[in-house]
């Protein structure tokens, strides 16, 4: 049994300890918002927060998450109220949408560390996340917008 805390809820899961956190989230806990894209830490689709840090859950053995706080896209907000989600809607970022959970989870860490990132800093933080549909320009705009929303306390 591995003890996990995901989106502020406690779980005990009976899986082999080398199982990547990604598959425990998706298959055992039914949290399918976190996506599988490559399984090799190359695309970022599986990005979640582990004690507030962005990790690639496809290469994170579930044991590494034991006793830590895991946050997934489902735990970012209950009502799309997170500034990034609002900005994503305002800029109409997603196309197929498959990469977007990972993009948003990566951007969330960026904005916490750097409340007003410049383009180059966005590039640095976000280059690990592939978007095959090519929504990068909008992601960049949405991150700037979310930064402004956070700074001003939110523009609806």
């Amino acid at each position: 049994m591995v003890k996990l805390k995901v989106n502020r809820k406690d779980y005990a899961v009976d899986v082999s300890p080398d199982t990547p956190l990604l598959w425990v989230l998706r298959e055992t806990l039914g949290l399918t918002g976190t996506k599988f894209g490559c399984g090799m830490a190359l695309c970022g689709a599986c990005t979640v927060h582990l004690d507030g840090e962005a990790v690639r859950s496809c290469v994170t053995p579930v044991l590494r998450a034991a006793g830590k706080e895991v946050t997934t896209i489902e735990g970012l907000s209950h009502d799309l109220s997170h500034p990034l989600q609002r900005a994503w809607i305002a800029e109409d970022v997603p196309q197929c949408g498959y990469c977007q959970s990972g993009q948003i989870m990566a951007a969330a860490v960026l904005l916490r560390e750097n409340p007003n990132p410049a383009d180059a800093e966005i590039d640095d933080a976000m280059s690990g996340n592939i978007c095959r549909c090519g929504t990068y320009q909008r992601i960049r705009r949405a991150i700037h917008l979310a930064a402004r929303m956070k700074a001003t306390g939110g523009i609806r």
Partner: protein
Amino acid sequence: MSEIFNVNRRDFIKTGVAVGGGLMLGFYLPRIGQPARRAEQSTSPFAPNAFVRIGTDDSVTVIVNHSEMGQGVYTALPMLVAEELDADWTQVRVEAAPVDPAYNHTQFGIQVTGGSTSTWSEWERLRKAGATARAMLIAAAAETWKVDPASCRAENGHVFHTASRRRLSYGHLADKASSMTPPQNVALKDPKDFKLIGKPAKRLDTPEKINGKGLFGLDVKVPGMLTAVVARPPVFGAKVKSFNADRAKAVPGVLRIVEIDRGVVVVADGYWPALKGREALETVWDESPLSGLDSRTQRDQYAELARQPGAVARKEGDVAAAMGRAAKKLEAVYELPYLAHATMEPLNCVADVRPDGCDVWTGTQLQTVDRAAAAQAAGLKPEQVKVHTMLLGGGFGRRAVVDSHFVREAVETSKAVKAPVKVIWTREDDIRGGYYRPMSHHSISAGLDAAGNLTAWQHRIVCQSFIVGTPFEAFIVKDGVDETAVEGAKDLPYRIPNLLVDWQKAPVGVPTLWWRSVGHSHTAFVVESFLDEVAHAAGKDSYEFRRALLVGNPRHKAVLEFAAEKAGWGKPLPQGRGRGLAVHESFGSFVAQVAEVSVTKDGQLKIHRVVCAIDCGPTVNPDTIHAQMEGGVVFGLTAALYGEITFEKGRVKQRNFHDYPMLRMNEMPVVETHIVPSVEKMGGVGETGVPPVAPALANAIFPLTGKRIRRLPIRAEDLRKA
């Protein structure tokens, strides 16, 4: 999917005959007023046709028969219904259509998403569906109020009777409306009265794509479902020789090993055990005729094939004679590789086969064909199979496979283990799994007269066909020429008196497929790059040279002029920067792009900006057009910079995103899109942004390095000064 269907559209409509595969083509319009076939599943009382349901809670559900794979059909198509329905846009919901003739493509006669056709092909039908519903709601209100329907009007989800200042919401009227007689002929709005169409609308599917709730095929879970991965042949066509089922079954969680036509399936209680089981399987494969395939020798083989004349796709004048008279002759060879689609969501399918029925959940672009294949594999009738179309994590043509292999293998496995099964492709399976954009070789030459006029053009294309031998052959292969191989080359828009385009079918067994923009994905690169070479040889500006040759093609010319102006063509650039342009028609739309790049001394390329001008006729959701241009540019640049699938000893060398890279955020240029106002025929937008970007890029690099790029992807040596 492909323009092929566009090319043959008229024939489809004209003949309306059965395709080889037994698929009925031609129009199927549900009888007006016939209740939706899904009405029994609906709690909504008012379902005037197959495409719209209105609930007593005022909700308006639009049933969409085209798959949402990022291109925005779950917004653009509901806009068509909502416009004529005068619906309250905030009440509009989307539901994926089941497989039913009512939902067949208006042009292709089967349920399919592709060829950048979704919006224009539904332009009339969905507006009529909305207008019919609206007329019935008005009739219901008029009867309630005992007034003349003509004295009522509809707006924003309500019917109003202005004289008596009364109004009722659609939800209130839903019950009664269903007992109204549907009108036989409804008038559609004058475009000047459009409230939604032509104005940017926020996508309806954004919220579910940013909170983890949207369900893609890979996210489906049904009770009792098992998870499987397939040990797939290392060489296409290789058959299983042996495997160690016991060793695989010793992995905790592995439940069953099933041999199917396409490999050995490891069925487990989750992905991870299935994957570990596959590693333990020790599968041994027979060799196949493709075991000797090597990309280097294949290039030579194609070059050899290019020496022989091919099947003629277009012929004007007498090229040989004109070449003989030419004052200057140019010859070049262009080569493009196989490409994998690499949809962000790897392929997957859930199937649940029972003795009396079968359910399939997947992201597919080809429902009718998949249903038939699933039925065949399950030993059932097509009517016994339900296909649930999920969100597609990218399609690009990869999810429209004529052999339905990714559906079939899930069905076969579920049948064998008598339980619902989800088959997951790993990224490696996906990249190595074939169905590639065909590799191609182009031998191209041009002749100029003494005044620098282009008098002769000869273009020979060598590539495989993924159409010959399929039920689509009768429609797409004309006089021995596969349209998907030559589109974009045979319809060259430039006025050249002597012109010959022919095609040599390469006899190679690598599975190939339509890949976003299909034939245009290689032909546009070749013709637009080579034309630049010719302009340069003639001592002319590439923009002016094209303009002069575009007589009689005003839509090409307009986008070219638009893009050139917006990009500042001819204006001085900062030191070290270059500009290149290309213009191309595909899928009924016209796109010109200007790329602005720089290359450092040590060969570092930076793409600063891509300016796009598009004429796609009347627009539905302009924001989607912008998004598709942005995405098309990224897709095309990814291929130009990185895309290449190669073979060694019959094995695909690439595995995952480390050796099949994608453009990333730090490489993203500014993409500027300008929609050229147009009342011409509506075209598509999903694919049309892809073709011009590679030649625009190569043409921008040339003035900086002095080197022509004639082979993709671009290599490091291409970026060093000549």
